[in-house]
């Protein structure tokens, strides 16, 4: 054990704590403190406890915090904020729900379009439904084990569902756009399917507030399929997504938002809208 023949003076210790020493003096005092219990004992009362706790908490946070999972890091690199990345990719059930539904449906649309000799309708039938079905499968007690907590969280169920819906849309957007460009017909079709896709999300939410998400997804899918299939008989293949139909989608989305707002008030049911 080292026995010191000298000790740091009170003025020097105070200057050290206040950070007034230059690098050389500071290092010298630190070196001495490392081996001198007596000076460490005199130093302790000079350091404010809250400051020490704060510094220690910072060290613990840096050392003990587990590294973020791969998918959260990937989502952050894709430009998502850190909290949103945690919400969207925190659990495998959420990731697989929207990712697999997006990719499988789009792959099907591509195959269907090629097999049917370049017909556009399979693509238009499936692509707008993908985000809707992705939303339908990525929430609800059977798919999301945290449903009971989400319902009572300040973040809000509706907000979470909208974030998830946007995630589904964003994840399949590049693939759908490329598919759209590869298919026959005007180039604007590559983006035109987004109109019904975006409108279907609030419409799904509105219908779901009456009959639940799965039945609502069925109604939406059936309705859209009927529109696309019936239009193939006598109308151009692009008819379901032409500009004047986009106005109809806009009107439907606005009506659905109004229904959601009314439903929350009239039923007195917290979160009835969602």
């Amino acid at each position, binding site marked *: 054990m080292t026995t010191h023949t000298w000790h740091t003076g009170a003025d020097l210790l105070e200057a050290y704590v206040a950070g007034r020493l230059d690098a050389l003096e500071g290092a010298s005092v630190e070196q001495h403190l490392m081996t001198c219990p007596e000076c460490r004992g005199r130093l302790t009362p000079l350091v404010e406890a809250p400051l020490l706790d704060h510094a220690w*908490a*910072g060290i*613990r*946070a840096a050392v*003990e*915090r*587990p590294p973020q*999972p791969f998918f959260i890091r990937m989502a952050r690199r894709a430009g998502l904020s*850190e*909290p949103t990345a*945690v*919400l969207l990719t*925190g*659990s*495998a*059930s959420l990731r697989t729900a929207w990712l697999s539904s997006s990719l499988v449906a789009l792959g099907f649309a591509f195959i269907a379009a090629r097999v049917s000799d370049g017909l556009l309708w399979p693509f238009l039938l499936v692509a707008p439904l993908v985000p809707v079905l992705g939303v339908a499968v990525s929430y609800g007690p059977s798919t999301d*084990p*945290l449903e*009971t*907590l*989400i*319902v*009572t*969280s*300040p*973040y*809000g169920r509706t907000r*979470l569902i909208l974030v998830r819906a946007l995630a589904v849309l964003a994840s399949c957007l590049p693939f759908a756009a490329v598919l759209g460009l590869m298919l026959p017909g005007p180039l604007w079709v590559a983006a035109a399917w987004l109109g019904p896709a975006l409108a279907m999300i609030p419409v799904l939410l509105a219908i779901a507030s009456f009959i639940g998400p799965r039945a609502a997804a069925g109604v939406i899918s059936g309705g859209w399929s009927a529109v696309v299939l019936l239009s193939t008989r006598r109308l151009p293949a692009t008819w379901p997504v032409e500009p004047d139909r986009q106005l109809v989608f806009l009107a439907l989305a606005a009506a659905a938002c109004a229904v959601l707002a009314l439903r*929350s008030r009239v039923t*007195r*049911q*917290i979160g009835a809208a969602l």
Partner: protein
Amino acid sequence: MNLVELRGVTKRYGGTVAVAGIDLAFGEGVTGLLGPNGAGKTTVLRIVATSIAPDRGDVRVLGRDPLQSQTELTEIRRRLGYLPQELGLPHDMTTFGFIDYVAVLKEWNDQTRRANEVRRVIDVVGLGPCATKRVVKLSGGQRRRVALAQALLGQPQVLVLDEPTTGLDPSQRASLRQTLSAMATDSAVLLSTHQTEDVAALCERVVVLAEGAIRFDGSVTDLVSTAAGRVWLCDEPTETGVASWRTGTGRQRVVGGPRPSNSDPAEPTLEDAYLLMLGDRAAAELSLYDG
């Protein structure tokens, strides 16, 4: 000061009345809800936790009406912790990851502050060494403590706990009691349980529910005193009371009914009082557990 007030609250599920026009108000401290299965305990807790709305009646949490607007609702939820009776934990998440996820739902957006808070609640429930373990690898009691930890995020002013001691061993229950009694100095804690010993150890106030109505609302000692002079110890088995069983000393404990012959009066417990208050229904539940 009352942090939670329910006035004339009714809730039905189809044709079944779960809660029938109850009035209940409570402030800081621990309030225990006791009652048999189907008494309406979980429904009351879900209403206070803003998980469901009542069909009739007024609810005030922290002075706000959760039915008034989304803003009021969100303000309440920011200061509320809720442990549901059954909480599914995603099998692929770690303890830290799960609580971190819930912390984001509770709007802890700053990553460093959130990590510190997550670490704090993990330490509070004594799961520090399990922070990086997947929840699927934890024991039942440890999973229950993970679920409890998320309810403690942000030191909520109103803490709603549905059967918090289920699956915990005696030392874990003692630790939970310590945590809750520390929290109850500044927060209103409402918990439901089947365990009368938890209520006796923790709650300043006990509310007994049966068939959706409040049968008793008062202090634990007042409830226990309702059983005074109605509990006996005797040598021979008897079927005369509301409930009777053989104790560890070999004598029969008889609760309620006429005094058995050759019996001695016994000091009543909260369980005795509960059995007497709910009569046959509670006794039937007791025999179910015994069986």
